[in-house]
């Protein structure tokens, strides 16, 4: 057995003590210096988005309208729009970096209930528009891969806009809709580039695995409301629901009805209905069936109010919005599914040089009808049509896709 103290390793160490010490010192400095140089970049995307909001130059009225119309594909590109989007370069860069981060905490004060300020929802739409305008500008130069990548950035941002509140989920869906419309336009103009289309297919599939969760937002909504229907906060909630009534009047009303005991009844009533609505929304029930059940619940709340069940007052004020949200969810998901289905058609066209005669199997469905989309070739390309009716809008949605000649 070799004695470590007297062995060959220790002998080498003893002979080269100074060089070894210097090496150790340099190694330590080498590791430590970059860490001490500057703090790390934020890992909270919201901080970068807020910086992006501040970095966008303010638009005047006419430019604002032009930007909106250009984003929606209603007008062509002009120098004013191009210059403005060019002046937002820093904001665009920040948004791209932010969209890749996992965490996004907007710092909202949920304890404020419905008085909570959500200014980011207004500004994220402007930022989204700037990014979509940038995508359209790139497409006008023939840079379709970059343009579609910019659209994917906006879709990633919608995931950050969030599903923590009902309103943020709705704003997220609206921004998604704007983006899918842009993708639809770009697909109709771009030449059939298989590589670009396959990348788009991958990106859209990845995003579809983490959709905005209405379940999450409803759960938080329920918690927030239940917390607000308490003696110490209820006057704020009533002020938000009925701004014409003074807090003193509201409290007198609550006390006349029985104070905390009455509020407990209200919480129970609201919670019961919210749970029912949530279970329907989360279920896999077909659209028409789910909508019928939600309408029944809404009618029951209405009946409770007509029967002067005072504890229904909060439920009656808050549940109708929830009922509408279901329709918005189906519409948003169906639009996303339409674009994913269309991408498959464009891929076939890029592979074979021709549009398919029928849709291939296993594609995302029309959620209004619960079936595959109806596919029709048109003079300019093809059309995807829902098989079920949107009962809120009383129409069957059709989506036209052009094919570049």
């Amino acid at each position, binding site marked *: 057995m070799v004695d470590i103290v007297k062995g060959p390793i220790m002998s080498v160490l003893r002979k080269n003590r100074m060089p070894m010490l210097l090496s150790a010192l340099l190694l330590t400095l080498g590791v430590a210096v970059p860490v001490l140089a500057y703090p790390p970049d934020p890992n909270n995307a919201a901080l970068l988005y807020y910086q992006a*909001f*501040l*970095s*966008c*130059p*303010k*638009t005047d*009225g006419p430019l*604002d309208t032009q930007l*909106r119309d250009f984003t929606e594909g209603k007008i062509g590109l002009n120098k004013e729009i191009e210059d403005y989007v060019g*002046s937002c370069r*820093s904001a665009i860069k920040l948004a791209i970096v932010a969209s890749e981060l996992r965490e996004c905490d907007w710092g909202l004060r949920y304890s*404020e*209930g*419905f*008085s*909570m*300020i*959500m*200014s980011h*929802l*207004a*500004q994220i*739409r*402007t930022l989204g528009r700037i990014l979509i305008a940038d995508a359209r500008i790139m497409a006008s130069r023939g840079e379709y891969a970059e343009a579609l990548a910019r659209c994917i950035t906006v879709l990633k941002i919608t995931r950050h806009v969030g599903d923590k*509140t*009902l*309103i943020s989920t*709705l*704003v997220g*869906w*609206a921004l998604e809709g704007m983006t899918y419309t842009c993708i639809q336009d770009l697909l109709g103009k771009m030449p059939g580039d298989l590589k670009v289309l396959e990348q788009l297919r991958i990106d859209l599939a990845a995003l579809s695995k983490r959709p905005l969760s209405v379940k999450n937002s409803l759960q938080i909504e329920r918690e927030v409301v239940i917390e607000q229907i308490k003696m110490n906060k209820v006057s704020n909630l009533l002020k*938000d*629901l009925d701004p014409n009534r003074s807090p003193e009047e509201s409290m007198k009303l609550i006390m006349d009805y029985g104070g905390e005991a009455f509020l407990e009844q209200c919480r129970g009533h609201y919670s019961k209905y919210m749970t029912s609505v949530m279970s329907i929304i989360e279920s896999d029930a077909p659209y028409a069936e789910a909508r019928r059940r939600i309408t029944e619940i809404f009618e029951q709340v209405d009946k409770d109010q007509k029967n002067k069940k005072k504890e229904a007052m909060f439920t009656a004020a808050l549940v*109708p*919005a929830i009922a*509408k949200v279901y329709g*918005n969810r189906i519409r948003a998901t169906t639009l996303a599914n339409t674009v994913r289905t269309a991408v498959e058609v464009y891929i076939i066209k890029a592979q074979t040089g021709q549009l398919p005669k029928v849709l291939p199997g296993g594609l995302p469905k029309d959620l209004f009808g619960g079936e595959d989309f109806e596919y029709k070739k048109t003079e300019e390309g093809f059309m995807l049509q829902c098989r079920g009716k949107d009962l809120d809008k009383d129409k069957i949605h059709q989506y036209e896709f052009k094919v570049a000649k």
Partner: protein
Amino acid sequence: MNEQKDEKWLDELISRSIDTSEPRFDAEQWKQKYPGEFQALVEREARRPQAARFDVLSIVMRSRIAQVAAAAVFIIAVGLFIAHLDHRGQQRGQPEQLAKSPAEMVTSASLRTAYNRGGMKALEEQCDRAARMLGQGLLSMKDVVEESNG
């Protein structure tokens, strides 16, 4: 509606309690009621010497400096009057929505109200209106450095 009804009811109650009719001065009745006072008033006016009357217009017409000063006062008065009118016009012309601050427009309650009222379209419009009102300004590190270097 109820508030309006309440106001009407309140107005009627006040009218019944106090005389809210506009006060009017009847000169003829006053002359008949107080003949002595009327005579004294007429005589005092007649006693005032004609020469002592302060004829502002004739002074202004004779003096060049006074003419310039009067013109300046007139121009300033007209300017102030127009500015006052303009300010009032602006106040009247402000759309109702401006009464709401952008922060109030983007509370959860306000956005929900918009959604309840007009669905997604109304919600989006409210967001856009608030975004236009919210302050935005480009400020980069480069700007800060350039500004601090004078």
